[in-house]
């Protein structure tokens, strides 16, 4: 009766596609494609951070960029000071996760309603953005790392092999490492969602009152969910920083938060694969539209998104799934009907 992860075809399909892309991609793509797809991979990890907390915990955060930026700056500052990237990478998960837990504690134990939660997360992002924009002077340094204000931090170290600070990854290796991280994040989230903790999280998303009437401490659950999402967003920020070897306050921008919301909404809230699909489609579309110079990129993207929300309110993946199910049933009905007519003919 219980559908375990091992029996979920979708999970294995996603894992298979991920591994195939990871190993075959660098053999068939040129440098430009690899760089481009690496960007999609980083943003997919970022999208997963919101896909998890919104889709499987019912927490709608308008400020996921706060954790993305925090992770990016944590990585930048730590890697410049330490001179290697393994510990900074771990810190880029841990620090945003700790900050997310602290913020979540005040929000959820303070019993903030959804609307106020959205406002608080948005305001926190704006505070970070404003704060980091005002750190241009030389006095704003952490060790050897100058925060640089609106100019950002340049020359962020490229990811190195753990334990060997001189062994930097080339673009193809970085792509494979990031694909590995995306697969691990996806796998971990699927395992969490399939666990008892994950089931309760879905229960909380569905009905908080009933979850607490069953004896579950929904505040504690939500803090943990929010912290996990914050850590993942922070880690994607570090991936972004090392991929670009540069980070600026735009990492904390409202645009960055809004993008995550758009990807999750377009891909399908309550799915993990959907937002990844949306990142790839919409980022690819942005790139193509940007090179065409016909109309403003944002204008066309906005129109596409409005169309998606109006025509496919469940999102891309759930709509595709529904379509596939209907086609499957239709096919089976036709097969049954033709089998019945064959039988009737042979009886005659």
């Amino acid at each position, binding site marked *: 009766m*219980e559908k375990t992860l091992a029996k979920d075809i979708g999970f294995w399909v996603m894992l298979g596609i991920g591994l195939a892309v990871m190993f075959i991609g660098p053999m068939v793509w040129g440098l430009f494609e690899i760089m481009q797809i690496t960007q999609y991979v980083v943003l997919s990890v970022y999208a997963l951070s919101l896909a998890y907390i919104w889709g499987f915990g019912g927490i709608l955060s308008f400020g996921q960029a706060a954790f993305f930026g925090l992770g990016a700056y944590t990585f930048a500052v730590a890697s410049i000071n330490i001179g290697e990237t393994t510990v900074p990478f771990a810190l880029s998960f841990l620090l945003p996760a700790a900050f997310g837990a602290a913020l979540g504690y005040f929000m959820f134990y303070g019993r903030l309603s959804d609307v106020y939660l959205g406002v608080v997360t948005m305001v926190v992002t704006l505070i970070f953005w404003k704060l980091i924009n005002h750190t241009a002077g030389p006095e704003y340094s952490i060790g050897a790392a100058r925060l640089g204000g609106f100019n950002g931090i340049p020359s962020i170290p490229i990811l190195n092999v753990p334990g060997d600070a001189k062994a930097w990854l080339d673009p193809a290796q970085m792509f494979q490492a990031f694909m590995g991280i995306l697969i691990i994040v996806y796998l971990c989230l699927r395992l969490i969602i399939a666990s*008892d903790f994950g089931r309760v999280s*879905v*229960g909380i998303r569905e*009905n908080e009152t*009933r979850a607490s*009437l069953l004896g*579950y401490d*929904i505040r504690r659950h939500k803090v943990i969910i929010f912290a996990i999402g914050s850590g993942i967003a922070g880690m994607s920020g570090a991936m972004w920083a090392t991929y670009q070897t540069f980070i600026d306050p735009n990492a904390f921008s409202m645009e960055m938060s809004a993008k995550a919301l758009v990807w999750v909404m377009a891909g399908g809230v309550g799915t993990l694969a959907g937002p990844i699909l949306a990142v790839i489609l919409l980022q690819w579309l942005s790139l193509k539209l940007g090179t065409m110079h016909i109309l403003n990129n944002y204008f066309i993207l906005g129109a596409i998104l409005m169309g998606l929300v109006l025509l496919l309110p469940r999102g891309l993946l759930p709509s595709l799934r529904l379509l596939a199910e209907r086609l499957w049933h239709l096919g089976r009905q036709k097969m049954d009907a033709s089998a019945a007519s064959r039988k009737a003919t042979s009886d005659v």
Partner: protein
Amino acid sequence: MSDAHILTTEKLVMQFGGVTAVDNVDFSLKEGELRCLLGPNGAGKSTFFKCLTGQLTPTSGTIKLRGADITGWNTHDIVNLGVGIKTQVPNLFNGISVYENIRMAARRKHLKPMAKEKAEQMMEKCGVSHLARREVGLLAHGQRQLVELAMVLAEEPPLVLLDEPAAGMTGDERDRLADLVLETARSAAVIVVEHDMAFIRRIAKFVTVFNRGAIFREAMIDEILSDRAVQEIYLGKQADVAA
């Protein structure tokens, strides 16, 4: 039934602005007792339940569960101490299956394999096994009532609160429910809020009547049904029909 009290409230008051929904209620329930709460709409029965389960913090007064003062406690702490409630409007996890709903309740008390077994037992007991894979949000009201009841019973609480459990049920479902309530009352204390007099007569012995937030009468069911004052405030012709 033991003489020890599982639940007592002393001078319990719940006010919303100028409205007193629960007014100085002194209520007590013995271990293993089955009690029915009657009263017209707005009498304060559901608000009383919400105070007992921590969904509302009383304005004043105390609530004691097996001697522990639980006034103002968080809902989950009260539930973990041994209170299960089926709410007036079924509170369920609509987007997931019947089985998953009940299993999530069973998991509070049992380890994984036992929780599965317990969930299956409760589905069987409440007659919803055939709906196991159905999404709860798609069920009829009576079926939802049974699913919520199964969830409450899966946690095996020593105090069960049932708020209008028979509402929206078919005759068969109501009969099954009455049997279930009587069976539950053999191992737990049960408080039932209900308006369906045929159902009440089937299960009730001792009855508490609420009116305007306060306890109006406490007596055996037959006495209550023949009490003219009670009939005037609430029962009306239903009493004659039921009798």
